[in-house]
């Protein structure tokens, strides 16, 4: 990946060149536009609630099935419900979280949410292993937010953090397969959507999807609410 191509990407996305400094050459990045291409993500630097430095692509996405959303700890809007739902997802998926599935919650207010505060938050809500709360430079978080499409087309709405996009993104990086659902969606359905992303040996050997009303939940303990 040459410098010009990368520069073009940042110029087009309207981001400050500072993002360049923070990124390193990771996988191919194809996003000349504002949104990332699933074929290439920038390897931006973030810091986890455990105090570790992590690279967005190498450490968080590469070869993984991930659940990713943006939040902030003091949010009194959509975040509490989303986090509560993700806790339920964590309960449903059990030990698969941290093994087959990784949860990433990225703070939209990195200045308010240093790693220590995120650590306290993670403990307070009861997040388990395999669930990272992340912060970083303001520009880095902004680039990730835009690149992953958590943007409102109305610039005024987009500026207002209380109206931030409450979607949760599920994806399988290797398959370039991504899908999003509202954070307020049913946790059982979210868990099912997440498992669509997880490779299975017997994967889809049998046809058919859920066929209501006689459908058997595919998740042990999954609520079919």
């Amino acid at each position, binding site marked *: 990946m040459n410098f010009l191509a990368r520069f073009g990407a940042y110029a087009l996305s309207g981001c400050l060149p500072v993002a360049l400094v923070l990124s390193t050459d990771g996988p191919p990045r194809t996003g000349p536009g*504002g949104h990332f291409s699933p074929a290439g993500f920038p390897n931006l630097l973030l810091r986890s609630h455990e105090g570790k430095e992590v690279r967005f692509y190498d450490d968080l996405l590469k070869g993984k099935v991930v659940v990713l959303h943006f939040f902030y700890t003091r949010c009194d809007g959509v975040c509490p419900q989303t986090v509560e739902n993700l806790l339920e997802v964590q309960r449903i998926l059990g030990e698969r979280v941290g093994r087959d599935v990784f949860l990433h919650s990225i703070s939209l207010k990195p200045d308010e949410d240093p790693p220590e505060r995120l650590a306290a938050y993670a403990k307070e809500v009861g997040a388990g292993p395999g669930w990272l709360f992340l912060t970083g430079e303001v520009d880095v978080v902004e680039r990730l937010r835009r690149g992953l499409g958590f943007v409102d087309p109305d610039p005024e709405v987009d500026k207002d953090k209380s109206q931030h996009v409450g979607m949760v993104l599920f994806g399988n990086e290797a398959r370039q*397969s991504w899908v999003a659902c*509202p954070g307020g969606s049913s946790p059982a359905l979210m868990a099912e959507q997440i498992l669509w992303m997880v490779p299975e040996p017997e994967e889809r050997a049998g046809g*058919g*999807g859920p066929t209501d009303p006689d459908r058997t939940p595919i998740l042990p303990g999954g609520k079919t609410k």
Partner: protein
Amino acid sequence: MVSKRKGESFRRSKKGLAPGAADGLGRRDLLKMGLLATGGYLVARKGTSSPLILVRRRDDFPPSPPTTPWAVALPMQQVAQNVALNPAPAEFPVQGEAPRAPHQKWSQFLPQKTYELVAAETTHVFHPDLPAPSTVWSFNGMIPGPLIKANYGEPIVVRFRNSLPTVAQHVGPGRPEISIHLHNGHTASESDGNPADFYATPFFKDNHYPNVLAGFASTHQPNGDPNEALSSLWYHDHRFDFTAPNVYKGLAGMYSLFDNLDTGNELTGLQLPSGAFDVPLFFADKLFQANGQVFFDTFNFDGLLGDKDTVNGKIQPYFNVARRKYRFRMLNGGPSRFYEFFLSNGLPFIHISNDGNLLPAPITKESLRISVAERIDAIVDFSNCSIGEEIILQNRLEQENGRGPTGHLLDPDEAREVLKFVVTSDADDFSEVPATLRTLPTINPNGAAATRTWRFERTNGQWAINGKFFNPNEIRATPKLNTSEIWILKNNSGGWSHPIHIHLEEFRVQKINNQDPQGTLVSRKDVIELGPNTEVKLFMQFRDWLGKYPMHCHNTVHEDHQMMLRWDVIP
């Protein structure tokens, strides 16, 4: 050189729709070329010399490679052929069929014709200027899929076979699991292509289309109400969460249905233009990568706009027409663009059908507005044109993102040019524009058993109906079989437009913003363009079939982000 390129394209195609890394700068170069080469497109209309600004206006994506307008003839959609199915379809699922409930009223409507449509990964040339054929998901190798021609009183089965790559093999947007919906069909639930009833390769499902008039088992036994006849339908994938990419990749086609008024023969019945002069037009806008592969943005939750307008699978085709009347069956195949079509020479459209339902009488209009998934049948009379005359079908509706139209019409010289008609010959014309078409069915809104109100909302970038998101297990309404209801749809979602589609039966608009419907809204419809701050009151009927059906926004990106709900017709 050529073979090397093909190899490259093949390698990329294995990676699905995502643009390859190496495209970055080349695409920008192409962008500039594209801007120079494809004048008349929205990208060029602001008149600025900075491609960067233009790109950002267009949802932050670089434009598709340049393509020469009017270089390709409009393809006629190929008609599906009746074939024997083995094993023969049956009431209960047969060997190889995905799980489903038994076909309702099977013995009453034994299929007289059977078809097989195979969904598979194939290649398609959208335009010869693109550097390589595009990898698509098609039915029987065609974009759009084969045109099914059906007749009332002639039940059929369409075997939709999934021969796409397996989920494990597939890389990129979309998901190779399908559930095919016949849009506008008065179809039993188990053949309706429910969003949750998807199946993977190598399974198939036999969708039973009895081609029977609504009311046949209720208000108008035994044959149904002839005033409920449908004419221009389409079929498409409905797999929930992945409908937008799956349909964008090509899993859709059209379906024309005839009866003793709309006969498909211009010598009989209403004498509407027929045969070669009855032309289905499938409109779909797309983005292409520099390597010619279609591009779908999975990190966009609002709606996708393409910079290339395709008609019947070709970018900006031309169509040689004769000096006579034509019937165009126009379908907006999505995913998110709305159209308002004009003819460049001011020729009018004679609007005869809304969402596949003939109007009580033709209405002559200067322009046709079509939101996503809507269909309009219109007659255009070229008989007074001169030989050699060229007429452009223009879309003058300004739209900048998934929010919907801005509310402004573009000037003719800024319009998106979609299709060119070239008047080349004379031809006999036995067709008529009848003074009346199909009488509207008699309805009794005062007899409605219930009134339900549905608010289409957006908070924190999330699409909701009455504050809730789609869940295939949650039944949000249970109308009783053979009853009618009033459904009120409200859009307070802050300036967004939602084309709302309700399965099973056509609705009738009773009020729009507390006013009586006018013009072409006095009709049967199955999609309503629910504009910002709009409220519509609909009369709904739930006749003849039991089971689950959805209501959803047909901006398929909103739909995939759960602006959908399930309702069930119960005994």
